[in-house]
């Protein structure tokens, strides 16, 4: 099979997410049932889930989820991993044999922490150290791909329809306070396991419906900061831009959204002076991080979720609220199927970020 970047397939996607603001943990069955009625938005070439709060026993350790194409790749990766990390648990991720899911790689999970002395000698903070390590594995070890690298969270993805992928990974056995899910309809690239959504770095995950036209401008810029876009798919670059702006530059999520879905100059001209200054600054400094073209994304992070549409709103998105739960999906049916009665249902405007965080003081 030809991989990502070796073939172009011209041809949409489904996204859904649910979070409990009180931090109540619930099973992955909710996310599976939510994505299921949007079956026809994807074509079986990729499905995936991000789950937050699923590893409370190991909440302080990084959970690496890794795909291996070969025994050699695993051996090589584990060798590198063990030189830098204290690995507490190494295990196969439990899966269920299903006729719908084929060509499985070996799928492993490691709970680990970087060696303290090594970390100190590099002078890097822990998260930076880990993100560089992940980029290194994914670019230098052929056949090994770290697809999840945060603490107390995990990504589960495969080639297949999302509801099948969820059952394949036995997500009904996991409980998290926030879940996002994606059904893929690859537009430019073939479907393969690594190319399925969510895309992840540390605890950031992105699921995306759309096709960004600024990919190459964004890629050239972000690669100057040590990221490597290895998959030639647009969602990967969105993940790195968010990591760069929010984690490395210390910008708030609102500011991050103001960069990637910046208002039009005509809108900035009509703002009061303080806002005009702020938005002019952001657009000038981060012009190469403006994301153009149609997108609706759900960003998952520790303690919350952010939904964002492109500024022209070329993709659909609805938000539902019921009690302490907030739902975001491409279609209303995805919400109603798990929450028939809602307190509120609404559609965010293009470029308007919707940020939902667990209540203050909740231990997650």
């Amino acid at each position, binding site marked *: 099979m030809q991989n990502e970047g070796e073939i172009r397939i011209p041809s949409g996607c489904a996204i859904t997410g649910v979070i409990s603001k009180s931090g109540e943990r619930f099973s992955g069955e909710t996310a599976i049932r939510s994505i299921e*009625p*949007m*079956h*026809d938005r994807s074509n079986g070439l990729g499905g995936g889930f991000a789950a937050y709060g699923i590893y409370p026993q190991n909440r302080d350790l990084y959970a690496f989820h890794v795909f291996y194409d070969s025994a050699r790749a695993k051996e090589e990766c584990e060798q590198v991993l063990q030189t830098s990390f204290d690995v507490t648990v190494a295990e196969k991720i439990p899966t269920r044999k299903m006729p719908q899911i084929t060509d499985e790689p070996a799928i492993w999970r490691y709970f680990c922490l970087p060696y303290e002395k090594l970390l100190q000698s590099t002078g890097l903070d822990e998260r930076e150290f880990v993100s560089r390590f992940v980029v290194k594995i994914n670019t230098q070890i052929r056949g090994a791909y770290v697809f999840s690298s945060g603490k107390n969270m995990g990504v589960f993805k495969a080639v297949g329809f999302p509801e099948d992928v969820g059952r394949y990974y036995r997500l009904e056995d996991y409980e998290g306070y926030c879940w996002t899910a994606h059904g893929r309809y690859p537009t430019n690239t073939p479907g393969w396991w690594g190319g399925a959504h969510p895309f992840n770095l540390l605890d950031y995950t992105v699921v995306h419906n759309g096709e960004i036209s600024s990919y190459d401008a964004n890629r050239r810029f972000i690669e100057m900061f040590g990221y490597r876009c290895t998959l030639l798919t647009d969602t990967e670059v969105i993940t790195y831009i968010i990591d760069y702006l929010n984690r490395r530059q210390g910008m708030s999520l609102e500011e991050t959204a103001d960069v990637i879905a910046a208002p039009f100059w*005509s*809108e900035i001209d009509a703002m009061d002076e303080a806002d005009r200054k702020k938005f002019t600054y952001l657009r000038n400094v981060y012009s190469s991080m403006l994301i153009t073209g149609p997108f609706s994304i759900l960003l998952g992070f520790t303690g919350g979720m952010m939904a964002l549409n492109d500024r*022209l*709103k070329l993709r*659909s998105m*609805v938000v539902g609220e019921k009690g302490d739960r907030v739902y975001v999906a491409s*279609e*209303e*049916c*995805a919400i*109603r*199927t798990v929450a028939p009665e809602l307190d509120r*249902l609404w*559609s965010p*405007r*293009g470029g308007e970020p919707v940020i939902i965080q667990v209540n203050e003081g909740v231990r997650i």
Partner: protein
Amino acid sequence: MNRIDANGRDFRALNEEIRAAGQEILIENCMGQRYIAAGMSGVSLTIQGIPGNALGCYLNGGTIRVHGNAQDQTGDTMNSGTIVVDGSCGDATGYSMRGGKILVRGNAGYRVGIHMKAYREQQPLIVVGGETGSFLGEYQAGGTIIVLGIGSEKKAPVGNLCGTGMHGGKMFLRAEELPADLPPQVAASKATEEDMAEIDGYLEEFCAAFSMEKQSLFDRPFYVLRPNSANPYQNLYTFN
């Protein structure tokens, strides 16, 4: 009345069942199935639950009533017939519509009536009771769009860039003020008695569909928007 339980049905199976079900049909437990009643004519369909995208696409007659909300692209390229939605509609409602009527009691999303067109007796109509999102009537080429802003606290019940690319047809907005960012190619003015007479029947029909008093609509002014000439964009890309 034939009842169809849509629970767990794939959209193809559901549509086949609808086609075989006769004149009067009630669909229960609808959950996102697309293309309901695509290209059909002459049936009376009632839907409970959430119909999927492109409800009534290519509809060629008959009526569809939704007891709740509809999703995106309701009435995509419909030709004739009536779709009545008791709740709200998503984006691109009446997308490329070329005839028939869509009446929405609540709000509608972005790009309502995009690429709507008319020809002789084919005069499509969209009436939205509440507000719409941005790009209302984008590239509108014909037909009538009416936005009533019932319950709206905004001065104009529409989003940004209303009428972008409009080159035919008319829009009526019940509003305190016109939107501030109308493109230069759109001419707007207070509706005259003649304009109001033109839509009186439509308002009548809308109010009858949702058991409302037509008189209550006249406490706010109506504005009418139309392209400012027969060919408003002739110099936009080339100067010939």
